């Protein structure tokens, strides 16, 4: 599968996300109006975003006032946010409280799937800069927010400045994150190497593991992700849950079903209702042919994080149980919201179903302008193939395969495109490779793969 993949990056107490899927931000006219009011030009907030409600109520445009405006919510983290806001208001030098507040907003964004909190984190950074120009702490916070908002080039610039100024492990981590998203895997790996040499821990191990996986070293990825998982802490349960979730995916790809389930269970023991872990758990059950069990878990995952990737798995599972009507409702939602929630996955979805190919291509092309990683090249290749532009699709597919990523969906797409180019031998090879790890594919993709293999 295409690991759309929130390689969640967690940095010490600072939860950093480069969640390529989860953090795609919904666009809403009302939110845009609000953002116009607050002076933001490109930000997009999910409709009904609690963060946007908080911002709307602030009646001000100054970063500090926005950062310190009351936010709704009654969970533990909301109380901590309120406490830090009060602390920042009282302090003669509020920089530390603002920094902590900013990272707490980052954490809240990740836990709530409400990307508006990233904008609040960005306001914390801006507020810190009004107190202390050239604050490295503010720069790091801002850099991670920009990275999370898919403004990778801007984030890279800040990361390079941080590396030049002080070169702390987090600085190299941010630099690597931005480079990974832009498809510069070797440069990213070099930055991550600096990071792990300075500080071997969950954050650097997860990055190293991801590089291994992306470059086709599944065994190494599992080994390093195990290191990451054991370095996790109950005090930062989501980070540990993330590492175990990634480990579960790797184990699933390795065909280690029991280990995959154990890893997703471990993730859920750290963070109850962790959507990413529920998704992997559901996928593993689907791989075992336990569609009925999978549906319940995938429903929960998709309700927690209603993004196309989650909904696509749920819809396929529902179809596998014969519940076509429920599947269609989910698929309608993918079509309605996918373009804003996660355009790359929607492009893949449309390409797979042969629907609205022009829209799929447009979405993939737009995505490629933001990031040039292998999965975006794959989405573009698949969209081009859906339009019958096979030679161009083949070119993009080569770029998608350039890092040697062992990914069932990449292989499947490569096989289909090669077949349509008339390259039967190559097509057979790719399809067989995909079949070797078919448990990573959606049921609908597995059906199509079998059809392709039969033709070959």
């Amino acid at each position: 599968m295409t690991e759309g993949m929130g390689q969640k990056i967690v940095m010490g107490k600072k939860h950093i996300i480069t969640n390529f899927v989860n953090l795609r931000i919904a666009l809403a006219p009302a939110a845009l109006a609000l953002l116009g009011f607050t002076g933001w030009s490109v930000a997009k907030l999910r409709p009904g975003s609690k963060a946007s409600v908080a911002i709307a109520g602030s009646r001000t445009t100054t970063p500090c006032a926005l950062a310190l405006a009351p936010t709704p919510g009654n969970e533990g983290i909301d109380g901590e946010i309120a406490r830090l806001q009060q602390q920042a208001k009282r302090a003669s030098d509020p920089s530390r409280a603002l920094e902590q507040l900013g990272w707490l907003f980052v954490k809240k964004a990740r836990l709530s799937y409400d990307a508006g909190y990233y904008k609040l984190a960005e306001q914390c950074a801006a507020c810190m800069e009004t107190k202390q120009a050239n604050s490295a702490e503010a720069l790091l916070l801002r850099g991670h927010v920009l990275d999370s908002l898919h403004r990778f080039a801007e984030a890279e610039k800040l990361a390079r400045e941080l590396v030049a100024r002080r070169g702390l492990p987090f600085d190299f981590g941010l630099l690597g994150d931005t480079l990974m998203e832009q498809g510069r895997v070797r440069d990213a790996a070099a930055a991550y190497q600096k990071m792990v040499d300075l500080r071997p821990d969950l954050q650097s191990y997860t990055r190293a593991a991801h590089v291994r996986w992306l470059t086709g070293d599944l065994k190494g990825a599992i080994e390093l992700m195990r290191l990451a998982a054991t370095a996790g802490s109950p005090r930062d349960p989501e980070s540990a849950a993330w590492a175990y979730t990634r480990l579960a995916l790797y184990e699933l790809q390795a065909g280690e079903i029991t280990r995959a389930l154990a890893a997703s269970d471990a993730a859920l023991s750290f963070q109850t209702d962790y959507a990413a872990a529920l998704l992997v758990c559901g996928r593993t059950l689907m791989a075992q042919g336990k569609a009925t069990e999978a549906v319940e878990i995938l429903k929960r995952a998709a309700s927690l994080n209603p993004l196309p990737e989650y909904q696509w798995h749920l819809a396929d599972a529902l179809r596998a149980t014969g519940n076509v009507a429920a599947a269609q409702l989910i698929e309608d939602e993918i079509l309605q919201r996918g373009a804003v929630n996660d355009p790359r996955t929607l492009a893949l979805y449309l390409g797979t179903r042969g629907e609205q190919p022009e829209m799929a291509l447009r979405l993939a092309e737009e995505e490629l302008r933001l990031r040039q990683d292998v999965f975006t090249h794959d989405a573009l290749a698949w969209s081009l193939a859906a339009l019958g532009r096979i030679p161009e699709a083949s070119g993009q597919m080569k770029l998608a395969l350039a890092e040697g990523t062992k990914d069932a969906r990449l292989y499947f797409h490569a096989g289909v495109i090669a077949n349509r180019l008339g390259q039967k031998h190559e097509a057979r090879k790719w399809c067989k490779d995909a079949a070797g790890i078919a448990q990573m594919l959606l049921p609908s993709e597995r059906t199509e793969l079998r059809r392709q293999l039969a033709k070959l």
Partner: protein
Amino acid sequence: MNTLLRKVQRGAALLLLALLPGTLLPSLVFASSHMDAPLITLDPAANTTDVYAFVDQDNGQKFLTVALGVYPFEEPGIGPNKYNFDDNVLYQIHVATGRDVAAGRATFSYQLRFKTTFKNKNTILQSYLGVIQNVGDAGQNLVQTYTVTKLDNRNGRKTLLGSGIVPPNNQGNATPYYNQGDNGENPAKDGVATEAELDRYTKESIAQLGNGYTAFAGQRDDGFYSDIQAVFDLASLRNPGKDSQGGFNLHLMALEIPVRELGGDQQLVGVYATTSRRSVRVLDDRRDDDKKENKNNGPFVQVARQGNPLFNEGLVAIADKDVYSRTSPTQDNQLFRKYAETPELAALLNAAVQTNRTDIAGIYIPDLIKVDLSTTGVRFAGGGAGNPMNPDDPGYSRLSIFGGDVLRSNIQDPFHNGGFIPGGWPNGRRFGDDVLDIAVTALVSDLRDPDHLIIHSPIGDNVDKNDMAFSKVFPYESTPQNARNHQHP
């Protein structure tokens, strides 16, 4: 309210505003080393809490006992599975002798490496398969063993001293013998005065190693005590205070080192500890043949360091806390002397002397716990002076020298008083030493001129003892709190 107390409160309030590091648990930051530097706080298996080092005598033989705690604020009620020593961490307790003490250089490093195995992996019962009668029996599914290796840094020679087994974590009914009446429903047994009184699991886990060493590694009650919450709550100290570590466990590694292994007892030694994790190869573009020979693992990289209590937590500025974690004491003079000689905390406490604190620097630079091996064995804390079964040793004081608890040295006379030196920290550190009160008292006093010592009355946080009694026998820290009936809200 006396003036001194007001000073403490005012100083601590400023401290709160100035020193809060960026952690998710900011109110817990200044707790011994339980939450010291930002980068290490979320790696609890490698996060050191405290280091202990003191002279002990047993059957006429003298030992340097050293101990290292990890897993700060280990919540008993969170379950047994998440708290174990990490097979991937290199735990080291370092001892400097001779000239190495002043240089901050480890002469010997005692390395502990753990290995985790399961009797049955086809079960969800990760830690226990049944009631554990004896350590390592069929009821204990997760079993950790460890090796202790002595590294002589002068010549690189390694000596495997032996191995041990880690007792189970205290879960309650699965581990009844930790608990009062050997009943898992009851609270954990308190510390004891004699080896014979130790609980079954602890007794069975004390490992006799080669060359006269004794080792223990396992879960214990966290013996650090202080009202950290009040200190950070705008220094709104209360009387009585509340032990912020009360009810929490940690994982302890303890080692009795025969002093002959260190070159005899007529010397001062220095002790500190580190934890390290391996770096890894991020991008593996080697040929397959090479991969067979070389594993992913790179060199160990130090991720945490601990010497005297409260140095990195209380004196080193936020910007340098992570630097401290990854550097060696050999660099302390260059990097951290300024924090000891001009301690910000002294200013916040309105101490009479705030600069040129050579007395404070003498303790912390380099940051080794200095232990005079020439004294007799230390006096131990038990369950308080009036405890009928396990009283403190006569003359013991939690305040060490500030409470009149002294030992006589045969090799030094730093106070020009005939060689009497502190009975506890900062001459070594015992379980039970009230290091917060001792440190604050030292800061508001002036100990620079041995002929004109100015000592203010001991001040502190109104937490004067641990929530559990200490044992007066190895491994000293009390049995671990029972998960079944200990959970913090």
